[in-house]
């Protein structure tokens, strides 16, 4: 851009002394990968709102059953199928149980099953996938073939079979998820480890004499952590869905312990007359799944190294 207002004099044609041709600091702060990811995540409004919902539901699930005058199994046969009122915020079910406390107690169950039902399989998956990827060769081939074979059949079928064997309830559910849900994570982690093994920085570290353990901990794990965290977050709505599904067909959580799936199941029976008994747990399920999905999306975008700016 020509700047015609500046008058150039002969004097200007002198060489500049005291130049320091340092490499210019690139404009833009030099953040670490995690700090940058955190910054981007915090900026993501949708993700933050979802996180807020999750936290609120979490808190309410702890607090409400404690402060409520009713318990989740307390029956009041004079007051069955009552619509929402100031006494029973969500009304009562066909046995006169207060739905407000049942929904929030059920939240504990569904959330616990959802979260643990996602973390535990992921941990198993990391271990197996990590071993498979790190050692490669025959070990890798065998494990991957095994996964191929097992995954030919939908996991729900395995879960149903397992639940039949060990019975119903939150712990059996989590066990069933753990046994059937690790395969996806294992594949992902194994793929990542294989990639990372070949990358220059690992070779460089090895050349400098790093041991296997230190390689695993200081290089491989931090790089796979991102994918794993996202995987766990997205696994929660899946686990919640499975729980609801199983409870719906009678296999998940048995009464009187409530879970959202079970409440939805009970609600469908009387849906046509008392729609609120289904709508309320259904909405809870949907909002929670939605929030985890959206937050997981935001998390994935934040941790994607290609989007760094």
């Amino acid at each position, binding site marked *: 851009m020509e700047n015609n207002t500046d008058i150039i004099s002969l004097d200007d044609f002198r060489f500049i002394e005291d130049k320091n041709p340092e490499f210019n600091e690139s404009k833009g702060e030099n953040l670490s990968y995690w700090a940058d990811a955190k910054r981007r995540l915090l900026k993501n409004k949708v993700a933050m709102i979802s996180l807020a919902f999750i936290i609120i539901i979490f808190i309410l699930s702890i607090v409400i059953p404690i402060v409520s005058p009713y318990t989740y199994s307390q029956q009041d046969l004079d007051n069955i199928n009552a619509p929402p009122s100031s006494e029973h915020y969500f009304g009562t079910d066909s046995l006169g149980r207060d739905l407000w406390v049942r929904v929030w107690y059920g939240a504990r169950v569904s959330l616990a099953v959802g979260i643990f039902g996602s973390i535990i399989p992921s941990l198993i998956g990391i271990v197996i996938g990590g071993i498979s990827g790190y050692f490669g060769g025959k070990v890798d081939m065998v494990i991957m073939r095994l996964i191929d074979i097992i995954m030919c*059949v*939908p996991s729900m079928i395995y879960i149903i079979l397992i639940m039949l064997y060990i019975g119903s309830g939150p712990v059996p559910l989590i066990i069933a998820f753990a046994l059937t849900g690790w395969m996806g994570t294992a594949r992902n982690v194994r793929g990542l480890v294989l990639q990372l093994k070949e990358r220059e920085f690992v070779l460089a570290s090895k050349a400098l004499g790093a041991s296997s353990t230190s390689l695993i901990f200081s290089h491989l794990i931090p790089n796979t952590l991102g994918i794993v965290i996202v995987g766990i977050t997205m696994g929660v709505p899946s686990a919640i869905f499975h729980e*609801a599904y199983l409870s*719906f*067909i009678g296999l998940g959580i048995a009464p009187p312990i409530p879970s959202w799936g079970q409440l939805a199941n009970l609600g469908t029976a009387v849906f046509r007359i008392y729609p609120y008994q289904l709508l309320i747990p*259904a909405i809870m399920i*949907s909002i929670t799944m939605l929030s985890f999905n959206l937050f997981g999306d935001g998390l994935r975008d934040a941790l994607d190294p290609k989007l760094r700016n």
Partner: protein
Amino acid sequence: MIKYIIKRLFISILTIWLLATICFFLLRTLPGNPFQSDQIISVEMQEKMMSYYGLDRPLMEQYITYLGNLLKGDMGYSLKYTNRTVNSIIKSAFPVSADLGLRSLAIALPLGLFLGIVSAKKRGQAVDYLCVFISVIGVSIPSFILGSFLQYIFALKLGILPMAQWKTQLHTVLPSVALSLSLLATLTRVMRASMLEVIGQDYIKTAKGKGLDGKKITWSHQIRNALVPILTMLGPMVASVLMGTFVIEKIFAIPGLGQHFVNSITGLDYTMTMGLTVFYGTFMVAANFIVDIAYGIVDPRIRITK
């Protein structure tokens, strides 16, 4: 290519065998006796029935017999519906479930792919946001809950569609739609991501550089390549539709195979549960096999690398 097919075939057969075996041993070792819950039967009668159904023989012998029968396609008699074979129940009920499943796929596939393509091409515009919104909602609402909602709105309140059962074309609408939504949502998401990935590729620039017009680029180059990752999803898609039929049939009182499956579980009808599990398992394995072959055809790189 042939090697690839044979390998997949081998794995498929292995899987079915594994499943059948697991089923067998699992159900045999389950507590409970299928005959005790129903009518009051004397112990003698129970024992007679056990021996009639071969349930008192040693385990391994039962297993071998079982495998032998399976290979012949015989899955035995239902323990609950006396005189009816599992096969006959499958024969009568499966077509209904298949019909439901196919209708859902017919809704979800074209619509899902279409919305995914549109939202990718019009990225950032209103259409895109709408599609993403629909797909996120669709993924978060389980099909059976949606089914109940739809029943409530369209059958109960508005009265324009039948509430349940599977009698006329109108009857098929709500269940198919309910079953299709989450699949539709997933397809839209995946197709959109795939298209966006492809659109940014160098070979699209090459195609443009040749002077090809927009439509040709979209069809021959973008969509064609974007579809490849979708194929890998077809297997799980069929699986989720299959699983979905169980609950949808329950809500809408549809006389399909799913109902029988669910009931057989709670009713401890061993042969039925096993038979249906093996049936479903085989079905899924076959579906995955076909998808794998199709994938090998469409993406030439797989044939070499796998």
